[in-house]
């Protein structure tokens, strides 16, 4: 019995040490990027198990340019601003929609870099051809996304015409509901919808655009300089063509919606 306990305690200690994070190797400035690791193609876990995505690659390139150490912190999207406040990351940069309430709360917000359209994803054999056909239908949307805000706060008349609005806690669950036939349509960001429709030929993205928001990067209040540094680095990347090169790697992101490439 004592041996078992000793073994268990030894295991606990090993695990406790293993779980401790390592300190950075040098004293360069470390920039911690806060991402939602469940948001392809902007930020997600790649095939090799490393975090990647359009936002992640741009941020990495910015840090290389500025000579900063680059680190990633996976935020819990519902609490992203709490985690930013608490210094767990230096920015939230992950396909984040700029809200007026963020500016009012004092966060420093970068220039918008992406125009995001909200679209409707349906089954290819569905009779739904536009938002008018959603009357009496069951519609799914991800909790805490701009799609949800749009339906619940702006397009309230449209939402009222639904039979039911289902909120899921991830895109994957919304899609599973749609493919499984328990909902008739999903309201979602265009790049995500396009990526899904490319993978599953039974789904189509409707042309109608329900609403448009802009993506930006959020910094803590008082970090204006950091925001300027990053903004400057992005401008350099746009000028030397790196930005466009990275964008090409993500065909699901419509280049026409990337603000910096269309100035």
């Amino acid at each position, binding site marked *: 019995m004592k041996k078992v306990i000793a073994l268990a305690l030894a295991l606990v200690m090993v695990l406790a040490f293993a779980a401790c994070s390592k300190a950075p190797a040098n004293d360069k400035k470390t920039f911690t990027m806060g991402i939602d690791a469940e948001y392809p193609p902007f930020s997600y876990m790649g095939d090799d198990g490393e975090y990647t995505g359009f936002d992640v690659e741009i941020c990495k390139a910015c840090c290389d340019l500025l000579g900063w150490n680059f680190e990633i912190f996976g*935020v819990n999207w519902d609490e992203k601003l709490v985690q930013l406040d608490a210094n767990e990351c230096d920015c939230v940069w992950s396909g984040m929609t700029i809200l007026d309430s963020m500016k009012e709360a004092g966060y420093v917000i970068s220039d918008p870099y992406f125009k995001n359209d909200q679209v409707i994803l349906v089954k290819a054999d569905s009779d739904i051809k536009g938002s008018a056909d959603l009357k009496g239908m069951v519609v799914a949307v991800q909790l805490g996304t701009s799609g949800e805000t749009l339906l619940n706060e702006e397009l309230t008349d449209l939402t009222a015409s639904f039979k039911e609005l289902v909120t899921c806690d991830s895109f994957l669950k919304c899609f599973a509901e749609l493919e499984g036939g328990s909902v008739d349509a999903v309201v979602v960001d265009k790049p995500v919808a396009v990526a899904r429709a490319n993978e599953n030929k039974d789904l189509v993205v409707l042309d109608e655009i329900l609403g448009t928001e802009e993506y930006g990067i959020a910094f803590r209040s008082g970090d204006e300089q950091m925001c300027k540094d990053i903004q400057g680095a992005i401008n350099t990347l746009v000028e030397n063509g790196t930005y466009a090169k990275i964008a090409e790697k993500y065909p699901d992101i419509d280049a026409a919606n990337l603000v910096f490439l269309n100035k």
Partner: protein
Amino acid sequence: MDLMTMVLKMSEGLGKTCAIFFLTLLFSLPLGMIVALLRRSKNKIVSNVTRFFISVLRGTPLMLQLIAVTYGPYYLFGLTVSRNKLIPVVIAFAINYAAYFAEIYRSGIDSMPVGQYEAAEVLGYSKVQTFMKIILPQVIRRILPSMTNEIVTLVKDTSMAFTVSYQEMFTIGKQIANSQTSFMPFIVAGVFYYVFNAIVGFAMGKVEDKMNYYEM
């Protein structure tokens, strides 16, 4: 992403899941005993304060307690949030589970017949001796099945650490699932949890056998 990479990536998280599990048990088992004894205190103030403590911890979601322990100190006192998330996570889990364990301990202690205390007193045992040598071994034997229940639940509750961005196994599984639009990580997670709990169940069964010294 092939299955191997997926399993490897999630195994990394499994180490963190194990860390929460073992550290929570390490702290909450003794803490629960202290709470149980305070709860049984003859001093009305002490027992009522403990009763209130238990009711708050059992009456609010663990998810809320995790957020409160992790971000509460920052918002109330401006303290920095620990970079090593294991610390707040284990504190929240240990306090929460201590409250549950305390009630299990109490049920065990209260189930002991008064006659045993009286017999021990006649035999000249001190109060501490009576508790440690006579009562506690029997209590442990009686409460083992309910403890196994609670410990199995703890294995599954570790997934709640995602609330404060602690990258344990299920958090990584969800990230892979949404990045690769695949349900496979959930199946892998299910297998991981099941095997983990099968081991816990087996170990607790062994302990129960060991404690069955009255039966032939």
